[in-house]
């Protein structure tokens, strides 16, 4: 993937642009150059380990896919990265500083978050909602407006600009919220299932835009259920299961039929199709145990 080669250059650019200096990089456990470091972090709620002993160092200019079965802890891991969830053990560092040391505005200038459900209490228009993404910044109105228009165009919601957000369909809301995340212009973008409610065209469009953000120097972390999409767009795939990081690496290394079959508890076919990896549930042997999965790499 193209993003990996350019990462060193762009990471320097990003840190200059955003003022994310390496002042705190001396923190123990933080990996040099990492935008976000998760060091031995765990989350324990009601005496149940949601996440356990996670070590994850995320570099800029990468699109990282978080995959795993339902209830594996993907959203909790994303909340940990976002600073929404405090770790019960271990630490989460943004640019070397503990995430808890950031004020809410400073953190909002570092990371934007697309949550799974996008509710809105009142009937603001799409344009107003996208403009909310500009709140952490003190830019001129002209600059804000330029960013908002561009973000709406990139998320393909410019035609909906004057519509009231609560009247939109689920997919339209997801895209409008994605436009708001783009308008926040942060070096870290965290997306929780951005494609869940989208049609094929918009799934591809949203991930292509996320890919472009990563190529431009951002760290993009995406929770995905569609493993083929993860294979097509991610530089790196983190497979989460039972609150642990069970595999972490380039898509072809992680998206293996045997590993996925084990983790998902259902046989899976991994097919190389025209140079891209396609992951399909194996329906030929319904009811067979995962150990008997046949890998089909043409």
């Amino acid at each position: 993937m193209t993003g990996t080669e350019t990462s060193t250059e762009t990471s320097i650019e990003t840190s200059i642009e955003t003022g994310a200096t390496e002042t705190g990089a001396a923190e123990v456990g933080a990996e040099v150059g990492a935008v976000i470091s998760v060091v031995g972090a765990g989350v324990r709620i009601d005496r149940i380990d949601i996440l356990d002993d996670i070590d994850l160092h995320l570099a800029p200019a990468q699109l990282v896919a978080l995959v795993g079965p339902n209830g594996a802890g993907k959203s909790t891991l994303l909340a940990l990265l976002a600073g929404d969830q405090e770790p019960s053990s271990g630490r989460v560092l943004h640019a070397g500083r503990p995430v808890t040391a950031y004020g809410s505005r400073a953190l909002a200038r570092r990371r934007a978050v697309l949550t799974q459900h996008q509710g809105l209490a009142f009937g603001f228009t799409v344009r107003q909602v996208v403009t909310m993404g500009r709140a952490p910044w003190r830019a001129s109105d002209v600059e804000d407006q330029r960013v908002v228009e561009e973000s709406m165009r990139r998320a393909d919601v410019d035609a909906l600009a004057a519509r009231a957000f609560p009247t939109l369909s689920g997919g339209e809301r997801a895209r409008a919220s994605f436009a708001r995340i783009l308008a926040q212009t942060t070096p870290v973008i965290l997306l929780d299932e951005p494609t869940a409610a989208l049609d094929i065209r918009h799934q591809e469009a949203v991930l292509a835009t996320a890919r472009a953000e990563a190529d431009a120097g951002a760290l993009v972390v995406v929770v995905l259920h569609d493993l083929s999409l993860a294979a097509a767009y991610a530089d790196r795939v983190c497979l989460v299961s039972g609150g642990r990081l069970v595999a972490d690496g380039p898509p072809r290394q992680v998206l293996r039929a045997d590993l996925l079959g084990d983790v998902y508890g259902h046989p899976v076919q991994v097919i190389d199709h025209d140079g891209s990896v396609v992951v399909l549930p194996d329906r030929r042997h319904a009811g067979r145990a995962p150990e008997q999965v046949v890998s089909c790499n043409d």
Partner: protein
Amino acid sequence: MTALATPAAPADEPGRARGAAATCAPRHGGHRILTGTGLLGALVVTLTLALIVSAGTGQLHIPVDEVVGSVLHHIGLPWGPVPTHPRGDATLWEVRFPRVAMAALAGASLATAGAVMQGVFGNPLAEPGVVGVSSGAAVAAGVVIAFGLTGAGVWTVPAAAFAGGLLSTLLVYLLSRDGGRTEVVTLVLTGIALNAMTSAGLSFLLFLGDQQAREQIVFWTLGSLNGTRWSAVLVVAPLAALGIAAAILLARSLDLLALGDRGARHVGVDVERLRIGAIVVVAVLTAAAVSFCGIIAFVGLVVPHLIRLLAGPGHLLLIPASALGGALLLVVADLWARTAVANADLPIGLLTSLVGGPFFFWLIRRARRTAGGWA
């Protein structure tokens, strides 16, 4: 009652209302701002007219030009006619002006408190009267009256009302909130429970108090502006001004809070601080209204809702427009309360509930139809 009916009419058709509001603005660019200034301007003009007409109307009728003339003479401008009736000037300055001023202040406070509460709960049904904050403030103030406490002079009742209002707002907030959001049903049921407790408290105070305290407490639960004095106006005015100014400062953050607690935090809002600030503002404003006027329900529900239909949900416009609209509503309602029945002064709280109750029904039904209407 006409002024009350006019803004209510377009409520059935939000589309048309919005179109009508936009006609005075150019097609492009700053149309929202112009619509905003247009709306605020129209409200200021209508409110001024309502204040003048209301001050001139009553058992002793004083023509509009004489009301204006009397005001101008008092501020050192010897223009226009002064009241011709020998007791005209005294009636205006000792009875009518304090009363209409109090109506305007109480209305502005309640409507602003409603707008802030709806913003912080992310729920269009939150209102001091509906969720029991007004009655919470009334119980605390009732204690002061029933036991004849006067520790802080003229400020004793407002201070108690503030404490009661703060306590009940916090209580409603903590009890009706779950997982970062407030379900409509939980909020309304919490209100029912709190209202039940506070009405029991008021009944107990009625039982304990002497004849005079009883009358005062009864007059409160009904809500009335009868017999308002300047001394009371001078206590309420700074509270209302402070509360409304603070609410305007919170406006931008309240907009962002529409994204939900988590969403607002993601765009840089210090949600905890905003929440505490908003709850204190609601308590100050409710205390301002309740201290001397008693429980006047539904103003905070009806007014912000109509303003939202006319001008959209942005709090920077919603809050000042609600303050002006609330003032207008109560001045007109008070005029009606004084004149509807000859030689009788109907309790104003009764009137607002009479109009606000059906409106509440309509709001519930409408919100049930549009699933996206709730937080």
